[in-house]
Structures are given as C-alpha cells and as structure tokens.
C-alpha cells in the first residue's frame, strides 16, 4: 500500500504496510539513517525524531498515525557543510563516544530548544530523560546542549535547512 509521508520538508510516497514503524520506513525506504534502532520498544531514545516539532520515538509510531504531519530527522536540521547549532555544538564539545545514541539525543535537545531557547540544567535533564547513553558522555552532552542554547540565543537559526 502506498503511504504519503512528509519528511524534512518533502513529501515521499512509500510502499509499506501502514502498521510499519516510522523508523523502518525512514531507514529502509528513505535511507535516512541518523535515527537508530536501539531497543525497538520506545525505551532507549536512539530513534528519536520530531513530529510537528515534538520529540517522538519513531520505533513505536506506525506510519498510519502520521498523516500530514511534518517529520524531521537529524538530516533535516543541517548538513556536514552547514550544520545546525545543535550539530555544531555536539562536534565542538566532542559529545559522542560510540555515537549510537547521539542523533536521538540531538533530536530530544532540538525539540527542547525550539520551545525553550534557554533551558535550565534541570529542564535539559528532564527533556533527555528518555535517551540512554551507555558510553557515559552525559556531561559532554549536557555541555553541548548548553552551547547550542547559547548559539541559538545569539541568533543562529535552529534549523539550517528550514525553508
């Protein structure tokens, strides 16, 4: 069955069972591989994307639920040449070790910063509560999000690819 999905500003038609989790479609059909498969149960956060700006676990959301809503993946925020503030900040602070959880961390942080450009430390911790990291770079992740918050507060657009 053909399902229409609006991802990173473009409408895609995919041939998939409507019950398919969004994550599978992103990775397998659209080759957007930033969102990762971690637990498949919505418990680790590595598959986080934005749906209408809200952090959403793509492994537990069937595509039939999405309709016209705007899906944003990490690829939709910026490119290697022109990274978004959240991406620049994670690179600058070297917040990744193995890196598997990092796209999910960035998307949770992005959702937070889009609704609250200067969050407190507690607000950052609360927003990233559903994102697990097993390497232990948490302090650098926190620092990177604070850095991204500074960059956005100084006027950098939060999304480099937004029209």
């Amino acid at each position, binding site marked *: 069955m053909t399902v229409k999905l609006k991802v990173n500003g473009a409408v895609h038609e995919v041939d998939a069972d409507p019950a398919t989790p969004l994550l599978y479609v992103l990775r397998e059909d659209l080759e957007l591989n930033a969102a990762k498969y971690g637990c498949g149960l919505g*418990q680790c956060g590595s598959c986080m994307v934005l749906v209408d700006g809200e952090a959403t*676990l793509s492994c*537990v*959301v069937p595509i039939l639920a*999405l309709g016209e809503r705007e899906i944003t993946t990490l690829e939709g925020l910026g490119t290697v040449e022109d990274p978004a503030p959240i991406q620049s900040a994670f690179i600058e602070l070297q917040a990744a070790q193995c890196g598997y959880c990092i796209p999910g961390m960035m998307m949770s942080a992005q959702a937070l910063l889009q609704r609250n450009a200067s969050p407190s430390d507690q607000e950052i911790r609360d927003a990233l509560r559903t994102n697990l990291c097993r390497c232990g770079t948490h302090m650098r992740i926190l620092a990177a999000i604070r850095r991204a918050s500074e960059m956005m507060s100084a006027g950098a657009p939060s999304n480099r690819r937004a029209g």
Partner: protein
Amino acid sequence: MRIRSLVFIAVVLAGAAGAFFLVWRPEIPVQAQAQAQSFDPALIAKGRELAAVGNCIACHTVPGGEAFAGGLAIPTPFGTIHSTNITPDRETGIGGWSLAAFTRSMREGVDRAGNHLYPAFPYDHYRLVSDADNEALYAYLMTRAPVRQDALANDLVFPLGFRPLIAGWKLLFLEAAGFTPDPSKSQEWNRGAYLAEGLGHCGGCHTPRNALGAQDPDRHFAGGEAEGWQAYAINASSPAPIPWDREALAFYLRHGWHELHGVSRGPMAEVTGNLAGLPDSDIDAIATYVADVMGEPSTERRQQAERLRQDVGAPERTGGDADTLAVPPDVAGMPGAALYAAACATCHESGRPLPFGGLDFRLSTAVNAPSPQNIVTVTLFGLPPADGEASSVMPGFAGALSDQQVADVLAYMRTRFSSGTPWPDVAEMTRRTRSGEHKVVVRPSDGIERAPLNVGVEIGP
C-alpha cells in the same frame, strides 16, 4: 425599646465573642533552644518510618530540591497552595516550634503563631495521630538538616486568602482528635485503620470531596482526585478487574506494582516509594484494613475474576507469526484497531512480565475505570524513567497521536478490554490534558524523584 436595644447589643457581643473563640488561637512561644542533640536515636528512627507513612516529603519537597524545605505548588480547585518549610530552620522552618506547637498543628491545623492552616495539610487525618507518634515525628523532623527557604505565597480564589475563614471550615468538618480502636476487630486491623485513616491519609485522595473541599464521609474511599490524576475507588466499587485482596495490596504497597494490577504512578508512586522503607507488619496492617473496607467480592465478581485469571495465565494466541492475542471480530473494524495493534500491542501483548513489561489490558484498572483521565495522561506522557535505577517505563505518544487518534485507540481498548460503557468526549479530554488546561503532574513510576533516598534522606536500620 431600651430592652430590645440591650438584647440586640448582647446578641451582637455574644456573636462576636463566639467568633473570636472560634477563630482565635494563641501563639505558642518560640522554643528557646534547638534540641537536636537530645533526641533518642530510636525515637528518630521511629519518626522516620512514620514520616514515610505520612508521605510528608512528597508535598514538602520540590523534586530535585532540599528535603522538607517546602515550596511545592499544589493545585487545588480553590487555587494553588505552596507547601511550607518543615526543616528545623529557626527563621523559615519549624526550628522554633515546641512539641506542643507541632502536636497542635497536626490536630487542629494551626501554626505556632496561631494562624489557621489550609486543609491541604491533611490535619483532618493527622488529628488521629497519637501523642507518642507525634513525639517521634517531631524528633525526626527536628533532626533533619535545617534549610533556609521562605514559603511562597499562595494563590487562592477570593476570599480564601483570609485565613480566619478556615476556622469556619473546621467547625463544619474537623472532628475531635484521637483514634478510637474498634474492639470487634483484630489488633492488626486496628493498626491498619490507625495508619491508613491517620498519617497515611489515604482518603485525602481516595475519598471524594464536597463543594467546600471536605471529604464526604458517606462515600469513604469511593474515589477522588490528586494532582490531576484519578485516585480510584478503594472500597466495594473498586474498578479493578481482579478484586484486590490483602496479599495483593501488601505486595503493591511494598513494591509499587502487582502482576494482576499494574504499576503505581502519579502521586501513588510517591506513596509506594515511601512505604518501601516500612516494616512488613505495618504494610500488612494497612493491607488488612483496606482489604476489609473493600469487602468480599460478590460470587459473580469472583467467578469472573477467576476466569480472567485463567485466561491471562494461559493466553489464547493467534498462532502463526503473530505473538499477540486473538482480536474479536466485532472490534476489529474500529478506527483505533490498527493503531492499537501497531503502537500498543507490541509491548502490552508481548507477555513480558511486570514491572518491566506492559500490563495486559484485560487486567487494567485504568481501562475499566469510570473516567479515562489516567489512561489519557499515560498515553500522552507515558511513564518517565526514574533516575539512576531500574523502573517501569512507557514512552509517551503526545508527539505521535492526535487528540482524535488517542480517542480512537482508547475507545477500541474500552470496547475490547472492559465491559464498561463507552467514555464520552475523550478527544476533548485529551486536548485539555495535552494543553495543560487540565493540570496533571507526571513523574517516574516509582516516585523516585521524591522518594527518601533521592532527596538525601536516610532510610534503613
């Protein structure tokens, strides 16, 4: 004429005197010395357990803040009340309070200076606490770390900011102090009644309130509300598909979950988080009492529960590659069916046991409850994970599902997993809950944020 005037003046004076005696409470002098060193460690230890029963820390601590320093905003139908600082700081806490002042506050809802306290502080229950237990609680609180933190102003609807009005409320609703045991019941039952009706203040959430915010004694434990959550009925009208019994209650109160009932969440998670530090005898006593209030289920209800228990124990699987339950054909076409199968069944029909697996909805009190508020809240916001320890967790679906989709999924679940009548206006309730118009406080499943360990309060021997 003169006599009439005199009578009139006498009546006015008598009325004024009556009002004065109703409202006025004397200040109890500031206690001269901090007495931290003079408490018996055994008394402090006893006070720690009692404070856990009273769940004092939950209201008197802001998550992540200093234990017992107050400042938590408590939403009520009459406005927002901020909890006070009950650390032994002499300026901003209760460091200057004598035992007499402390005991009076517990029984009469009056602070040391003589001001009436709002019944958000559940003195309508704490009035039952014995002298000896008040002394232990006092010893425990007076030996906590003093924190200098001023109370925040309350934000109540006019004219409730005027505290003398509370005296009128007490005249109507506050009964005399002291617990009267029921000689026809066992010692354990009486201990449970003392704890549950007194410090435990179960009725504070589980008994419905009247228009003036007082608990309705004719509807004891018939279900109420707390911090935007439904506190289910815990009397004969309990909506649990499998009736609670003493053993299930004791396990649930001790561990914060039960395999036939699910996990505690919302404000109840703080209660079970606190009770974890209590001796078995007290947990068993509370369970004995509450199970007795619930009463023996009817034969019909017992038989239904027995059938359900067998079904759940040996689930009928669809076979093939599907590892989920067979879907009755009459619900398969409902709009929420596909969403349920794709988004919910993967965890809730996986067969993974509690507390880490999803509850089989046939056992769910939330699906069988009169109001869908709790399941709307959990569907939107999930169960956040606890910091630093294993806990039940569920992802929130606020970002994924629209109000109408939430309503569709819940209508499907209600039809399939409950014999209750359909819930009206679920989409509108979802909208109000999502937007914050209906305020609901979401915390981790075991209340770990404000459980004693996490706010630096020692627990243990």
